[in-house]
């Protein structure tokens, strides 16, 4: 009897233990690694007000200087010294190592110059022969009207393998972040003491949580101290930007934000993303990859028809704008031997499928976040800079008719 009672007690204890462990397992395994709809944030007025105040503060100050350190889990680090001056001047010194010489972006509201101290780095857009000719004493000059152009984009566009800025300094000059219209909501994540400074943390969700940003906003000056961005593609990409040495009450001397090329320096015309793409008459590279509806798509199956191949990604505003237009175009031209073919090799499948569903995209789509598909895009179609959307028109014989990147409003 005693033994039976003992056994009963032990069995009960074991059962309770297993139930508790099952519950614990369930709770801890709800890992934030996998995208879930619950990650989409609803707006909280107070948090939204904090966000808006931060943007307003950035836009209101006359002069702003700060250091920004951008890093990623793989150890890559890039530091920036950013100096912004109203109405439209700026200077950004970039280095990925304090011991190396910097490259600098300077702008006056009309033009932007990029130049390097010493030998410039080999960029994605370079080829060996061209690089030898433009290694040093060169500069880039581009039109850059204040408030209309993204400074951060210019750094990214160079294709330097560093980490770019998360918060675009152009906001200071009134530039609207292209991701603004895609904010689902802003919510508060509580107060936090960030390196001795009292901050509020807010979470901003974009594009159904395909991108999330966290801002540690100082209660004192309403400027960020840390920004974290998580992009949920096929894999999760995390970047962190830390601000320090923030000065908003200083006066930045004019000579800091002006520049003219020294004697003997040459202007270098950087190849744009379009310059690297396939040329008219080249054979369009073949592929045979999984599709969004679970089947497979082979390019050669569409021989005899004109194909508009559009490579896209959920998280690019340009792609989000162009795809509904393409859907309309596809419906209008279905019977005319013209087919629209989507190609997505970077996105998380769940997010991409949801996007396809929400936008009622009925044209066939390759959906394959694999190395093979990425090789097709990078090497096959020469999209080294990963500029999206990338459009390629392919004729009935499988040759390229035209190729271009990006989206222009009303483009036909």
């Amino acid at each position: 009897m005693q033994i039976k009672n003992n056994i009963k007690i032990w069995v009960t204890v074991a059962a309770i233990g297993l139930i508790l462990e099952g519950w614990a397992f369930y709770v801890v395994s709800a890992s934030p690694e996998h995208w879930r709809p619950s990650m989409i944030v609803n707006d909280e007025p107070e948090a939204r007000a904090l966000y808006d105040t931060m943007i307003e503060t950035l836009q209101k100050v006359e002069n702003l200087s700060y250091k920004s350190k951008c890093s990623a889990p793989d150890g890559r680090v890039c530091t920036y010294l950013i100096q912004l001056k109203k109405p439209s001047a700026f200077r950004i010194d970039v280095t990925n190592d304090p011991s190396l010489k910097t490259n600098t972006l300077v702008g006056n509201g009309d033009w932007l110059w990029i130049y390097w101290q010493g030998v410039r780095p080999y960029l994605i857009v370079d080829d060996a022969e061209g690089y030898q000719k433009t290694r040093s004493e060169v500069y880039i000059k581009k039109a850059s009207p204040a408030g209309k152009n993204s400074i951060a984009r210019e750094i990214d566009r160079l294709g330097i393998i560093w980490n770019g800025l998360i918060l675009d300094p152009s906001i200071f000059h009134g530039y609207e972040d292209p991701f603004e219209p895609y904010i689902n909501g802003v919510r508060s994540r509580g107060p936090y003491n960030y390196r001795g400074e009292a901050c509020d943390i807010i979470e901003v969700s974009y594009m159904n949580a395909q991108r999330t940003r966290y801002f540690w906003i100082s209660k004192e000056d309403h400027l960020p101290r840390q920004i974290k961005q998580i992009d949920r593609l096929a894999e999760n990409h995390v970047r962190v930007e830390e601000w320090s040495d923030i000065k908003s009450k200083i006066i930045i001397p004019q000579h800091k934000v002006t520049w003219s090329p020294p004697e003997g320096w040459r202007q270098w015309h950087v190849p744009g993303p379009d310059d690297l793409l396939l040329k008219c008459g080249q054979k369009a590279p073949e592929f045979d990859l999984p599709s969004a509806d679970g089947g497979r798509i082979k390019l050669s199956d569409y021989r005899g028809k004109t194909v508009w191949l559009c490579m896209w990604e959920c998280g690019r505003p340009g792609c989000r704008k162009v795809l509904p237009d393409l859907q309309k175009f596809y419906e209008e031209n279905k019977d005319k031997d013209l087919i629209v073919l989507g190609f997505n090799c970077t996105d998380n499948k769940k997010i991409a499928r949801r996007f396809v569903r929400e936008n009622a995209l009925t044209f066939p789509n390759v959906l394959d976040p694999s190395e093979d598909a990425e090789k097709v895009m990078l090497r096959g179609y020469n999209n080294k800079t990963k500029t999206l959307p990338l459009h390629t028109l392919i004729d009935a014989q499988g040759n390229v008719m035209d190729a271009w990147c990006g989206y222009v409003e009303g483009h036909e």
Partner: protein
Amino acid sequence: MRKYELIRETFCRRGYIWIVHVVWLVLYGGFWWLFLPESEKEVGDFGRFLFIWGGFFLALALSAGIFGDDISSGRICVLITKPLSHGELYLCRLLGLSLQAAAHFILAGCIIVILRFVMRKGSIEHLGIWLFASWLLFITVAALSTSLSVVVGRIYNSLLILVVVVTVYFILGLLLSSMHQKADTGILTAFIRYAWPPFELLSKFAGGEYGKYSLTVGRFSVSKSIACVVHSVFLTVVYSIIGIILLRKRQFSRQRD
């Protein structure tokens, strides 16, 4: 009195045990003094140091040969013939280690508070949680080490765990960096997360999700915190049960005359 003697024995069984405690406490103080920069206001870096050194290495140092010494020397032969259940013997030894660790971490906390007061640098916010998480990790690692000590002689239980942990994490790092298909490493990372001593879960519990590259932000929710603690305790119980079963099944004999 039996429990008291068994618990006391875990401290007195080897001469170096009190030296280990002193050295570890000095290390904490040294780390705080030497490596925390003036401007560092977070307890995170120190917390992680405490977590690994106190929760893992201390557990290995104190549990080295906890049964292996008795078995190798033959003392176990007399112990086993006492009217003492194997479960009680095992649990009292584990309890002895846990109480030592608790006293150790309380002392560590006091030392850090004093240093903070004297040197006026660093932050002791959330230090208590780090100490608690370190203690939980200590108990789990100690249970694993004690169970292993039943089958592995002398101090090789601790050495084995140290070598295995370092090797596994090294290989895992290589695999994760080289494998592109996450699914292939999912099983391995799941095993490391749930069956292995809970380094990841407890460090997340203590550090919250303010880890620089973590995928969310926020001090861990109450339910997740409790879940981490429950899982850690569950693992400890599982390791202990394995150890008690091994002790019951093991045969102890030095002579075969």
